[in-house]
């Protein structure tokens, strides 16, 4: 069906870095007329970055973009729209305070002027009817009042509305993630109809079954590169998983296993509760990994455990003081008006008192001790916390938790934006601390880090779906458990 001679969009040698992180490392990518491309890969493989560049919302550090064979020098989202490239974003882009019809109207210049409101309403209703029969959404509904799945439907339907602007390519970034099975089915069927009608689509999804059945061609990305590009009919689920995961984990770290079944359980999540049919147990001195795709309930479990330490929670027991190392530093961790020392000591103030007052010398000692132990690069701990680099701010947050009296340390993907040297230091520290009897629950999106764990729980859709012991741990097994079985 696809005509390889005619590429409607072509990216060549595209590179993009965010700080030290290389999101795209020289990607060549082409979309042909009348084809559906399935785009798969891990979180952080570069899929969304690549699509934002193609849609005109992001710009590459280097590389070229050509549409219908014409190189584009000034590629913006307006230009993309004018040339018929549209994107349904993962972060929904509708204005919540406007109605469905008004959201449609603002995206089409042709719907200006008198009667535009009526035409916009008709347009979006027709599109919704065509894609999602029985959708139950009125054009007059305010978007903010709609459920997340309905908003996703409007977003998709709006991308397929036609006025004066041409439409050649629709990018769908995880469009089914918030749709139920039946609506997802309707959408996938519509994609096939659209492709048959001459529109090309790019479909990003973590559900490999729908990728394989809907796409003509599948592109696999890993670490900012395209690692496979094959016709969908030649692929199987297993081969896709292998392409995404690549080689096995490198040489196993031998954990000096002092942790036996004799150690007491300090944190427990009962099976059959809100977190799924598999329970979680953490013993004294264990390092427990939480894996799976990003945002599938790992952070929520950590927060639930954090709260369970202070107040009774159903189905959860936490025995001992807890401390949390935030991964989202700005939102969950840093106190931006304070010095480095105050940011470290905040979790330990009760222990730093002399009588009713916080002892300044004890506070300073604590900060100095941990600057040495964890290697925070600063000559003055009284400097503002924001004077540190991101990685060093993160070290300060580690210091805050490790300096405290907590015996259970919860870590919420704490290595985001941390350089390799720091990471290795912190891994060592975690291992030593665990040997001294501390328990770590560690959510990470980096599969390599799971190698530091005694046991790994894999999450999908807010539930624990698999438990892997350290010795059975392979990236393929984690990926296998992370993805839904639908349609495979």
């Amino acid at each position, binding site marked *: 069906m696809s005509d390889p001679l005619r590429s409607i969009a072509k990216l060549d040698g595209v590179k993009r870095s965010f700080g030290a992180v290389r999101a795209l490392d020289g990607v060549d990518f082409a979309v042909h007329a009348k084809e559906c491309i399935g785009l798969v890969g891990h979180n952080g493989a570069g899929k969304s970055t690549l699509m934002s560049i193609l849609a005109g919302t992001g710009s590459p550090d280097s590389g070229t973009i050509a549409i219908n064979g014409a190189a584009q020098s000034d590629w913006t989202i307006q230009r993309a729209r004018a040339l018929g490239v549209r994107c349904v974003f993962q972060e929904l882009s509708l204005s919540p305070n406007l109605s469905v019809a008004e959201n449609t109207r603002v995206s089409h210049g042709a719907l200006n002027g008198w009667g535009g409101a009526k035409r916009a309403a008709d347009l979006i209703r027709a599109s919704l009817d065509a894609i999602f029969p029985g959708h139950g959404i009125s054009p007059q509904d305010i978007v903010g009042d709609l459920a997340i799945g309905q908003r996703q439907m409007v977003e998709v339907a709006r991308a397929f509305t036609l006025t004066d602007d041409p439409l050649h390519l629709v990018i769908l970034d995880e469009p089914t993630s918030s749709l139920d099975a039946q609506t997802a089915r309707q959408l996938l069927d519509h994609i096939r109809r659209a492709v048959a009608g001459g529109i090309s689509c790019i479909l990003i999804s973590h559900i490999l079954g729908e990728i394989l059945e809907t796409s003509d061609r599948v592109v696999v990305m890993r670490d900012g590169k395209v690692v496979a590009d094959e016709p969908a009919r030649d692929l199987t689920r297993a081969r896709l998983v292998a392409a995404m995961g690549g080689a096995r984990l490198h040489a196993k770290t031998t954990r000096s296993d002092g942790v036996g079944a004799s150690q007491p359980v300090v944190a427990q999540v009962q099976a059959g509760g809100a977190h799924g049919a598999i329970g979680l147990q953490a013993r004294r001195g264990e390092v427990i990994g939480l894996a799976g795709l990003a945002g599938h309930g790992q952070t929520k479990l950590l927060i639930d455990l954090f709260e369970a330490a202070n107040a009774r929670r159903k189905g959860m027991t936490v025995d001992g003081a807890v*401390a949390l190392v935030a991964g989202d530093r700005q939102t969950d961790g840093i106190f931006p008006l304070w010095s480095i020392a105050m940011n470290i000591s905040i979790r330990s103030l009760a222990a730093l008192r002399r009588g009713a007052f916080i002892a300044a010398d004890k506070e300073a000692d604590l900060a100095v001790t941990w600057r040495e132990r964890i290697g925070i690069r600063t000559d003055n701990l009284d400097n503002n916390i924001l004077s540190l680099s991101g990685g060093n701010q993160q070290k300060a947050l580690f210091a805050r938790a490790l300096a405290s009296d907590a015996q259970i340390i919860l870590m919420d993907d704490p290595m985001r934006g941390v350089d390799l040297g720091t990471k290795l230091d912190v891994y060592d520290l975690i291992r030593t601390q665990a040997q001294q009897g501390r328990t770590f629950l560690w959510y990470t999106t980096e599969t390599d880090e799971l190698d530091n764990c005694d046991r790994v729980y894999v999450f999908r859709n807010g539930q624990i779906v698999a438990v892997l012991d350290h010795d059975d741990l392979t990236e393929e097994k984690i990926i296998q458990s992370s993805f839904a079985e639908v349609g495979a």
Partner: protein
Amino acid sequence: MPSFAKLFATPWIWSFLGALIVWLAAVIFTGGHGAGGMITAALSLAVFTVIVGLGQMFVITLGPGNVDLSLPANIGLASAVAMKTMDGQDSLIALGLLAALACGVVIGLANYALIRVLRIPPIIATLSSSFIILSTDIHYGRGLQIKPPDSFADFANVQFFGVPILGLFGVALAVVAWAGLQKMVYGRSVLAIGQNMRAAKLAGIPVERVRLLTYTLSGALGGINGALLAGYFRGASVDIGNEYLLSSIAVVVIGGTSVAGGKANVPGIWGASLFLVLLLTMLNTFGVSAGLRLLLTGLIIVGVITAAGGHKTGR
């Protein structure tokens, strides 16, 4: 002169400087007459703003949206409760003070309950509770002026060499508040919550307990203020606290506390309170009419907040 430069980098120095300037202006206008008297009067009157200003400071430091608008009604009711309990008898003075304090504590607890249990934003919760308090006060006090016992009124007006005893009390209270803010776990917790409530919670701070304590503290200080005001002005009345709605917030902001929360300044409360009182004194000595005086007060407060707040909120 690094120490001199450092002094002028502190945010509270400007409020004291402002107080000094308006005092000098007034003294120059009178040709030096009553310079000392002005200061004595200012010290007495500023204390009342300092007391509620400190409570308001802790509340505002809890972060955006936190403010106690029930202080004027609180002061009014507490003044009536104190005077009625004292019943003009010297032997009941301590009990009356205690009753005013308890009244303030209950109001603070009620404010927090509205905020927490009914999830009403503090600005609405404290404003609506002030209507309830006001109605209670009107019913309870019957709108009458109730006189304090003579010795309580005398005590509230005692001076040592031109320094009013209430001024000394105000300074002592500020020292305690400063220690609480800078040196105690409670103050650190308030400052942390004001910067980032979620991070504070995740750092193990009992956020809701600290908020409860802070609104209660503000209420308690309002209650004490009501009793002292009634003693100083020799009588309780419903509208005795009216001016403290604006002034309690104004002294917090002029004094160098961040409206965005997380950063507070105790000495600045004193400087700003003296500034406000002396500003009024200056305008009175100039002989401007009541209408013009209010207009100028409003304009000057807006001007000072703009000037003082400009660089601080810029970070």
